[in-house]
């Protein structure tokens, strides 16, 4: 327990500043909007400081503040109607059965070569939130399955199943981006579209 407000503030700054980038990235992927992401981080920081007395020195500050971020997002920013904008889960999880041929390189290599930062961020933005939060916390921010389970207040088995499905959904979206790009480059977009239908 910290005694004075100055001590609390000093500790808070030391712990918080190295996490600012990660908090912003995660907020941005969740809100899909820079302005909302900045507001979400600001709100998280204010809430966390108000609760800093409950934070035990030496415990996992990173997981603690991410829990505040994700709870604040769910309570204040996430709208159920957001889900309506997304394709159905069945559609998103459908296995990609067609992978177009690429001259000289495998489809996998073509995928890896063509992915841009924008493709990846757009793809993540289009995953339903329950899968996205697990994918971002675990695969981008490097939290363990156990830490992710604690942050999101869900069982570790749920983290694993959501992560598996989130990965598949994300891969399907990326395959589609890559296939479209490569087809366009080769002038075979019509063929690709026909095969997908």
């Amino acid at each position, binding site marked *: 327990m910290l005694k004075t*407000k100055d001590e*609390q*503030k000093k500790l*808070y*700054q030391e712990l*918080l500043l190295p996490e*600012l*980038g990660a908090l*912003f*990235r995660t907020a*941005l*992927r969740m809100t899909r909007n*820079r302005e909302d992401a*900045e507001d979400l*981080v*600001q709100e998280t*920081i*204010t809430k966390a*400081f108000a609760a800093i007395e409950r934070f035990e020195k030496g415990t996992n500050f990173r997981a603690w503040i991410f829990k505040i971020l994700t709870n604040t997002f769910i309570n204040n920013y996430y709208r159920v109607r957001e889900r309506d904008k997304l394709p159905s889960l069945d559609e998103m999880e459908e296995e990609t059965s067609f992978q177009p041929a690429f001259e000289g390189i495998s489809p*996998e290599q073509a*995928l*890896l070569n063509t*992915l*841009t*930062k924008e493709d*990846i*961020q757009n793809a*993540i933005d289009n995953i339903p939130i329950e899968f996205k939060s697990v994918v*971002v916390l*675990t*695969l*981008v921010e490097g939290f*363990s*399955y156990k830490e992710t389970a604690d942050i999101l207040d869900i069982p570790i088995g749920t983290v694993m199943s959501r*992560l*598996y499905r989130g*990965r598949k959904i*994300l*891969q399907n979206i*990326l395959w589609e981006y890559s296939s479209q790009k490569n087809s366009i480059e080769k002038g075979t977009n019509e063929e690709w579209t026909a095969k997908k239908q």
Partner: protein
Amino acid sequence: MDCKEAVAKLYLYLDGEVLTPQERKEIEEHLKLCRKCCEKFEFERNLWNIIKAKCLDTPVPSTLISKVVSVINSF
């Protein structure tokens, strides 16, 4: 270990999660012998590394830094 078992543990292996040293060793031995699984593991490893790297490449806006400093100073 066969291909089915190796693929079932692929993500646990790549994520560095809940596998015993013995299980990790068995997967690595399988990967030395099975080209198909080795390529699959490599592809998945590369894909998730790229995804992570591109996501991490998101600078904090200077406006947010100013806001944070101001919020902390107000406490």
